[in-house]
């Protein structure tokens, strides 16, 4: 018996020493993040940095300052976890950070006002949308260099890749079409018109000529078979079959849908309709609206967790909650008064939401089961968005 205890003690000591040694070794190599899935990335618009918060301890691991007046917009980790990238909207540059060491390894000039971005599934290509430049900057993540600028878009907001990485779909907020890019050639090959502008448009120049609220994103369904693109001005969602790149169905939703968000179970999707302060819940099987429910003003995002949908109403200080089984409202969570909520990400277990709140420079953690909240303050100035590797709700404004 004594022998056994001795063996266990010795083995334990060796393991502990090995772990401590490994930790010391990593630290010596300047490793700050050993596991890229262990952190929440926070993009701080006004302190011009990307901050990293440990998910378990809720402590800040570090931050990477990008430069004054860079004003980063969206942050994303490459699917292989090697790099973290962001577009500096007011610097017209893309910033590439090494995830392990949190070193800024490359700054690459893009086109005007880079905002939203996406990686190809194999982590090779980083497509950076430049809404004011009407272009996409293609960055090769092997050479860490810009290899091409794809022109011809109209305020490209979001990029989505097909699961096989063959094509990328670009939502044009300044038009009513989705751009299809051949990823092998990095060329815009098709423009898919989401819907006709109604005939009465000519009587309403204020609405149709004044400003376009076009397509924010072409969002793939969880099974990857279809893409869904909401058009704000037209108030419809177009269902795209990517095999033929054709719209196969139109779904009329509420007024001025901001974009579409996919539920994680593949049953429903939601459009927050800022024009009439409602949400439309779309049944993805029948491609029809299953319910239109009251929501709040200035909605900036929808997250799914614990069988619920959490809809962020930016200026009201509330997150609206909906039961996705009964499709009924399930109350609201008050985040504060006179505050501005930004966007949120959901952890990979679908248990917690990490919501950026810019007025008080904090991230609010929402427990999806209990609707309880916890605040992590002073994460940086004007936290604008959050991101977790492999989260199903990684999005931006």
């Amino acid at each position, binding site marked *: 018996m004594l022998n056994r205890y001795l063996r266990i003690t010795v083995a334990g000591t060796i393991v502990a020493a090995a772990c401590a040694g490994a930790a010391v070794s990593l630290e010596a190599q300047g490793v700050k993040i050993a596991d890229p899935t262990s952190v929440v990335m926070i993009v701080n618009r*006004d302190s011009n940095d990307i901050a990293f918060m440990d998910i378990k301890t809720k402590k800040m691991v570090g931050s990477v300052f990008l430069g004054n007046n860079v004003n980063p917009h969206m942050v994303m980790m490459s699917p292989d976890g090697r790099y973290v990238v962001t577009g500096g909207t007011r610097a017209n540059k893309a910033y590439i950070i090494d995830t392990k060491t949190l070193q800024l390894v490359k700054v690459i000039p893009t086109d005007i006002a880079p905002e939203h971005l996406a990686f190809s599934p194999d982590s090779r290509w980083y497509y950076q949308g430049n809404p004011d430049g009407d272009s996409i900057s293609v960055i090769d993540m092997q050479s860490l260099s810009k290899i091409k600028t794809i022109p011809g878009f109209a305020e490209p907001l979001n990029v989505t890749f097909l699961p096989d990485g063959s094509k990328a779909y670009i939502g044009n907020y300044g038009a009513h079409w989705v751009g299809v890019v051949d990823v092998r050639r990095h060329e815009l090959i098709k423009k898919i018109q989401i819907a006709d502008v*109604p005939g009465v448009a000519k009587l309403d120049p204020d609405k149709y000529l004044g400003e376009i609220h076009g397509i924010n994103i072409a969002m793939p369904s969880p099974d990857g078979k279809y893409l869904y693109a909401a058009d704000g001005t037209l108030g419809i969602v177009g269902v795209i079959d990517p095999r033929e790149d054709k719209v196969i169905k139109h779904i009329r939703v509420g007024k001025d849908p901001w974009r579409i968000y996919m539920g994680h179970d593949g049953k429903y999707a939601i459009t927050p309709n800022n024009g009439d302060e409602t949400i439309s819940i779309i049944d993805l099987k029948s491609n029809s609206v299953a319910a239109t429910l009251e929501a709040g003003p200035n909605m900036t995002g929808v997250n799914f967790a614990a069988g619920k949908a959490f809809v962020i109403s930016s200026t009201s200080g509330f997150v609206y909650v909906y039961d996705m089984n009964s499709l009924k409202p399930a*109350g609201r969570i008050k985040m504060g008064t006179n505050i501005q909520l930004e966007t949120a990400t959901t952890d990979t277990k679908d248990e917690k939401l990490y919501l950026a709140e810019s007025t008080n420079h904090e991230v609010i953690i929402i427990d999806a089961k209990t609707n309880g909240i916890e605040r992590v303050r002073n994460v940086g100035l*004007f936290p604008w968005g959050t991101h977790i590797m492999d989260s199903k709700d990684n999005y931006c404004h």
Partner: protein
Amino acid sequence: MTCWSARICTRWRRLAIALVIVAPSAIASAQQTQAPAPMNMADHRGALLGRVRNAQGAPVADTPVTAVNEENGAQFVSTTDAQGAYEFGALPMGKYTVSTASAGLVTFRRRGVDIAMDGKATLDIALDAKSAAEAAEGERQELLQKIASLEQRITDLETTAVLSEPETRVRRVEVYVDPTGQQHDEPVPGAKKEVTYLRERTYRRQTISEKIDAALEDAAKHQVTVGVDAAMATQFAARTRGETDPNNGAYALASADLFFTAGIAQNTLFFADIVGLSGAPPDSEIGTLTLINGYTARLVEQNSLNLREAWLRTEVFKNRLAITAGRLDLTNYFDANAFANDESTQFISDALVNNQMLGLAVNGVGAATEFDAKHGFRLKFGFQQSSPEPTSLGDSLFTLSEVGYTFTPFALPEGTYRVWFRTDNSEPDVIRKGVGLSFDQKLSPAVGLFARYGQQETDLGHDRFYSAGVSFQHGFILNPEDTWGVGYANMNLKTGEKENLIEGYYNLLLTEKLRLSFHLTGVIDTPEGGDKFGYIFPGIRFQAAF
């Protein structure tokens, strides 16, 4: 010269003396202005000459040699002759960069060639590999210098331009103040939590349009917002049954609603609605039991401005409880059926806008509270002056309570179901009661059903009313935002008066602010102790709302 008088002579004498004194300085001055100005440096010239030879030492003919003044960038070109000689006969004095180029590539470059006044400088040029390398290096250095200079200028621009200045804003923060008055960011023993305001500075570059938008948005928050809802409803009346007059008639009613809204405190709003009606609806001549034109409901006067509503609304308990108080139309807050509740965009007949058993004839002072848990349940209670005559609210008190629930039953889209109860003590020594049900249920995104039922107490028993119909949107329509519907209403009063009404409408959205709708209403009424009569009312409503 003869002096005209001593006085004049004296004057001439003084003038002559003055001239003598002033003249030398004037001449000196004139000499100064006439003296040639110091010569411009460009007027001091010197010559530069030399020969251009290739690597083998042979002369290079017909090659341009360029001399660029390093101070002002002035450029001079001379071409070599057959012997490779070149000459700049009169270059303004200064330092020059002398270069030659071939096929766009600089083959020789020498900086700092000094041209002295009236001097003759010599520069022989050898076009060999060494000179080409020196030239390339010189070009590179110059380019790097230019880039550095441009970067510096951009940095200067970024740091000094208005839109790149650090932005300052004031933030509300919670701090902890200990008994000694020291302020802490985190709680410390004995410290009290206090709220204070803090100015913070951030580096956010904004575009001009962002700045303007932010300023406009900020200004709009402090303004009173005015809304207008103007409509012209033209209806024709054709008798279909009975002998009542008129037989045929045309009626037009113009309505202008002005809404004023202002945010006056946190979650608190002021609202006023002033309405002006002009013209006459069919109801002015045809005595149907319910109003054929719902625009005139609960309005006492026409052809004058009426204050329909003026109230304050505040939201408390995390915005779940809304309290509205002032002059109200209480029926606006109750039985708000989604498909049959608005005479300006849906049915025009009052029987398909309001539950006739709500029994409120006029607007008045009152309050409405609404508790919305945001789970689908809503509880409402309100009271209002039901008659303008009594001075005491206790003599004319109308109360209304409602419970509503929104959900998605039987895999259908959402529907709202509600039940209400009301009391009214405006008649002496009696409290009249009424009760009603109402629902609106979407069958699909395009089709919705609605129905209402209500009854009220009278001396003779219970009056009853019901209505039902179907409404279409997003389907079976001409334009995406059009709506249409068909509804039926039945009223049965204990006095023997009865009414059956049917209406269909199509509402065409011309623009966001302009709508045109077509209505066809049919009604058969049985008046108390009289003969049945029937009418049809085709009509057009033109509405602008902005």
